[in-house]
């Protein structure tokens, strides 16, 4: 089945991205105990995910990582682009009205935060992205909705 194959490819890509994030050394040691405030523009975990919601969240992460323009995260940003394509393919198989989410114009406060809290932004963004991808991975097994 083509849809099964696309779904598997999506899961593999998600796992690849997670692995890439884990390969970034400084992100491994970030304590999950500490809650970093002031970075509300970075999406948090969502329990009920739909395909469109996944696409929108990935678009935000993609923008953040592109803004960070770190060498490590550029690859992840490209992976996110591919991941979103797969999500669109899945949606098309399911005949979901799934308009491609346009990239948000500007993330409020992103510029100021990057100026003074670059490290925090990157670490938090990758950390939250990693958690989000793992949630996606779980949701895909349950055939998320449109």
């Amino acid at each position, binding site marked *: 089945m083509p849809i099964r194959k696309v779904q598997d490819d999506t899961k593999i890509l998600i796992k690849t991205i997670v692995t890439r994030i884990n390969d*970034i*050394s*400084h992100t491994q*040691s*970030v*304590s999950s*105990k*500490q*809650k*970093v*405030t*002031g*970075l509300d523009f970075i999406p948090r975990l969502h329990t009920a995910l739909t395909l469109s919601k996944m696409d929108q969240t990935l678009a935000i992460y993609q923008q953040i990582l592109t803004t960070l323009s*770190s*060498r*490590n995260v550029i690859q992840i940003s490209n992976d996110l682009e591919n991941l979103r394509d797969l999500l669109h393919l899945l949606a098309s198989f399911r005949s979901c009205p799934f308009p491609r989410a346009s990239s948000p114009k500007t993330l409020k406060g992103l510029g100021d*935060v990057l100026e*003074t*809290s*670059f*490290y*925090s*932004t990157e*670490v*938090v963004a990758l950390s939250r992205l990693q958690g989000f991808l793992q949630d996606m991975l779980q949701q895909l097994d349950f055939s998320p909705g449109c």
Partner: protein
Amino acid sequence: MTCKKFYVALLHWEFIYVITAFNLAYPITPWRFKLFCMPPNTTYDFLLPAGISKNTSNLNGHYEAVVEAKFNSSGTYFSNLSFKTTFPCCFWSEQDKNCSVHADNIDEKAFVSTVNSLVFQQIVKPDPPLGLHMEITDSGNLKVSWSSPTLVPFQLQYQVKYSENSTTSMRKTDEIVSATSLLLDSVLPGSSYEVQVRGKRLDGPGIWSDWSTPLIFTTQDVIYYPPKILTSVGSNISFHCIYKNENKIVSSKKIVWWMNLAEKIPESQYNVIDDHVSKVTFPNLNATKPRGKFTYDAVYCCNEYECHHRYAELYVIVKPLPPSRVKAEFTVKLGLLKISWEKPLFPENNLQFQIRYGLSRNEVQWKMYEVYDAKSKSASLPVPDLCAVYAAQVRCKRLDGLGYWSNWSIPAYTVVMDINVPVRGPEVWRIIDEDTTKKERNVTLLWKPLMKNDSLCSVRRYMVKHHTSRNGTWSEDVGNHTKFTFLWTEQAHTVTVLAVNSIGASFANFNLTFSWPMSKDYFIPIEKYQFSLHPIFMEGVGKPKIINSFARDDIGKHQNDAGLYIIVPIIISSSILLLGTLLMSHQRMKKLFWEDVPNPKNCSWAQGLNFQKPETFEHLFIKHTESVTFGPLLLEPETISEDISVDTSWKNKDEKVPTAMVSLLFTTPDLEKSSICINDECNSANFSEAESTKVTCENESRRQSSVKYATLLSNSKSGETDEEQGLINSSVSKCFSDKNFLSKDSFSNSSWELETQALFMLSDQHSNIISPHLTFSEELDKLLKLEGNFLEENNDEKTVYYLGVTSIKKRESAVFLTDESRVLCPFPTHCLFTDLRILQDSCSHLVENNFNVGTSGQKTFISYMPQFQTCSTQTQKIMENKMCDLTV
């Protein structure tokens, strides 16, 4: 009247345009002011033109004219009053009121100029400050800073007002500062500050500028101070933090510190500064391990488990150790600042070095110098001031550019010491204590102590070097004194003051030469003077104007040269003239003497002599004196001696034969050598071949007689040569004995007429023997007897013969010949001829006789008579006794 004039003036109120805002280069922003001018004792209201508001009020019983004008930087309108009065004005602006203005209206424009000078130029409203900036200091205070408005020609004072969170009212700071920054209260997190600044002229009248554009400074909820620390391994650093969460400042006790959001910093490193400020300290830091692109550690201040995304950055870097054993010194002679160091032990990489050096002051203005040679251990740098203390530091870094610069080494300082000999000697002035009665003067030398830059770098002592022509050069040690007195005694005295330091004496020195003139117009050469005119400004002494004066020695030289130019040609021309004269004389003498020299081939005495190249005259006759004793040559070439006989013959008339006959008398001790005519017979044939005839006769009866005489023919009268020859020939063969001593034929008329030198020919049988055995009376008798014998021509027994008598004028050179001494003797000069007058008379008589009987009376005989004879001392003595002892 004044009021009327003022009123009329106001009716003709005009506006003038004042250009360039009252001569201020500084642009002034538009502002409004009011000028209250109160004419004295006026109650009149007046009109103001449109555009200017008018107001009158009753103030202290007087009306006050209120003029409001708008003034901006491009100009202003103002009234033109045409009255002459003085009235007070008050300058009124929004912030200030100034009533110290008195405007004098002298003419129509003076009002403006007066106001201009009194009001507008003094009351200045500057622009508001620019570049407002706020920051949090490392100590946690808010600091506001700004810059002064542009083109302010004077210093300003400032005032700051600020507010917190915009909700509270603005508050002004009480402090008015002249600096361009101000520390405000401690910063509060999550707050908004609005701050404004204004300025005012610090000195003199002025008004506050407008408030600057407000600056709003918002602090974050979490404030770190300092926000970043760059330190090296092993150092200790601290961060402070104020945390505000949900509009509430977190208690410092709840604050925890995390490193990189991954590691919690132990609480033992926390310190509570106050309720809101927490401090964390990192002792003995290790180098930061780069994490990706992050080269720092992010230090988080957290409210328990909640951390703000802001963090402090901590850079712990590894620096090389600084270079060690850094020294700074000046190189002697070269005068360079030499900085030396040793490479640190770590790292072992090749290093580059950086030197900073500067004058050691409170704030050293460093100059940088970089060395890219890893093996270098020193660098020599030129510095302007060799006699100052310089500070120098060195640091290093990996030569490949990686890593960081080390810390600066411990500063090294130079020591002020002598670098080289003084650049020059001191400038010297002199005071001459002149004593006109003496030729000694006390001269006091004064000089200015050398500065460090000239002495390089100290003066141990001064030396005064003297130089005089008599005493040469000597030096005196003056020590550190700057005054020296010496006695000037010689005509010229040169002194030089030298500066001496530990290295040596100065080379370039000032000389002073003292000299007094030899005469009014003569000046001893002196040194060239140099006048330095130093202009003195408010800022200090300006660059001197140096004028070189004339040097008197040059003038003297020129004068001497001019004299030299005249004297030298005169000397040269005189020398040439003298030389020419000598040559001419020599030629003339040569002619007179040597043209009549007998042919050596024909004359025995002349044989062996080189007449062409006689060494000297004396030599010529010394040769001769082997047989005849001669006296010195008396240069009387025209002297005529009486010839006793003439024995000449010319076989060849074509030969150039001297036509004049010169008598020659000589003695012949050596008969064989001296004469060929020693016998009775005359060898005329031999004589005939002689170019210059020479006749020698001898006493026939007395063969020992040594008196010989001869005549030489001269060509004094060449026209009579033929006749002469005949005459001569007639007497050639005639020999005479002492019996016929005087030959009448042998006398020449002309010779007696022309020549006046008297000659005595004395014969004596005792040749070469001087026998002064005769007494005075005997000598006199003998002399008289001889005189008588002279008169008798045939007196054979007489041995004294008169050859001639010289004139009184020339008798000094007269000679006589004694037959005993066989020398020709001149008459002593003091031998009065009065005593010999009888001789003269006799001679005269003899001459007459000769003239009468002489066959050669018409001939001119120039005697060839070497008048060189020696007189014995005794003879001279006799002559001195007015007696001529002719028998001696």
